[in-house]
């Protein structure tokens, strides 16, 4: 059974379809290399980075920006409110 979903070939995150433990590995077919080693617990439906994402760089899901990284993120790391910030949400205060 697939443990994650890659929504678009340009995405730099995948979304977990099952909870994933640190140390587990998964392989990506498209956009290579890749074997990713999970670095920390990823809950069901949460995101995991599959590329290096620099602080300030866009996080891409569905082929679109869903915000920017607030610090450097490595492949296998959990991507969520602690390291991903909305761009639209902050501008929305205008």
């Amino acid at each position: 059974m697939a443990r994650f979903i890659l929504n678009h070939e340009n995405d730099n995150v995948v979304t977990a379809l099952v909870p994933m433990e640190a140390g587990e590995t998964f392989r990506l077919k498209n956009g290579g290399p890749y074997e990713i080693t999970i670095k920390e617990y990823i809950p069901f439906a949460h995101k995991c980075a599959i590329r290096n994402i620099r602080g300030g760089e866009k996080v891409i899901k569905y082929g679109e920006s869903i915000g920017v990284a607030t610090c450097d993120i490595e492949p296998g790391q959990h991507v969520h409110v602690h390291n991903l910030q909305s761009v639209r949400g902050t501008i929305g205060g205008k």
Partner: protein
Amino acid sequence: MFAGQLGVSRLETKFWGYRRPNDRAGIRNYVAVIPSVCCAAWTAARIAASVEGAVLINNNTGCDETDADLEQTIRTLAGVGRNPNVAATLVIGLGCEVLSSLKLREEIEKEGKPVSHLIIQKEGGTAKTIQKGVTIVQQMVEKASEIVREPFDLAHLVLGTQCGGSDATSGLAANPALGVASDKLVGLGGGSIIAETPELIGAEHWLTRRAVSKEVADRIDFIVKRYEARLKAIGEDFVGKQPCPGNIEGGLTTIEEKSLGCVSKVGSAPVQGVLEYGEIPKGKGVYVMDTPGSDIESDTALLAGGCQLICFTTGCGTPVGTPIAPVIKITGNPLTYENMKDDTDINAGTIITGQEDVKDVGERIFQEIVAVASGKRTKAEIHKCHEFCVNRLELSY
């Protein structure tokens, strides 16, 4: 694009529908009983309940409203009467309401289908109106029942898309799969409408980029900004509260991510235009309709806009239907499907469990759309769920 390119056989490009004027096709054959004002609602209800094939349109408005609301109400109620699933309409007025039952009748008559109206105060009260109304509706149903279904191209279908009770699976499974089905229908010449303006916040660019003109792109931005401004004016920081704690716990991090998950339900086809609440589109293809996120208020607007059916994705499960258009319920959550099987038509949770991919489920949804168009009953229809509510823009007085 031709059917072969889409991998579609000839059989899948048609449905069995009811011929209406102006080259439109209904997928159901109701006689609608529409109270022009909420005061006439229960009289209308008892007329509809007395005749098989008649349905009540449970209007909650029609008086004591601002000009803007009056315009929206009449557009919505007239749109419902004009919807191709309606064979004929009886309008019931009280007599003193601001929204004239005669005016509503005239608006519906533009569609060329039979319309009649009764005014309670003129008839001399509820009982007399019910008696006359039942006779009129009986004759309408008899005439409508003589119409036989005939084959129509799928280009005659306009699909409404809806999401409600969303959870993390909505953006992963149900909505992308619905987007595949929506693209297929639009590729065959049909229409697909996305609504719920607050749920576009953060994903406007995904729609504006696909707009057929700068004018359409600007209008998409405009309706989103207008909605945000109206919420702000009453002190509601909607954007600041999104995603909500439940969404965050469920894995949604930003409003962009949440809205992109929502907006995937209308696929990737170009956006042809933007509609006001309940407005009928002038052509086919994808349209954006300005409605609240509220499920019932947006479903009601989609009916008025001419949608013959609605595909409704839900993570948590919901029974809601509409009085005149079948609602196909789709969940991406396998637990919800098991828990609420009686109310759910399509299990898109197979994407989550890995048994199917998004394309497979999208194809299943498309086939269900064709089957429902030709007469297959949805769970919401079988349960007689006829939710209906016209949105209010302003205060009543």
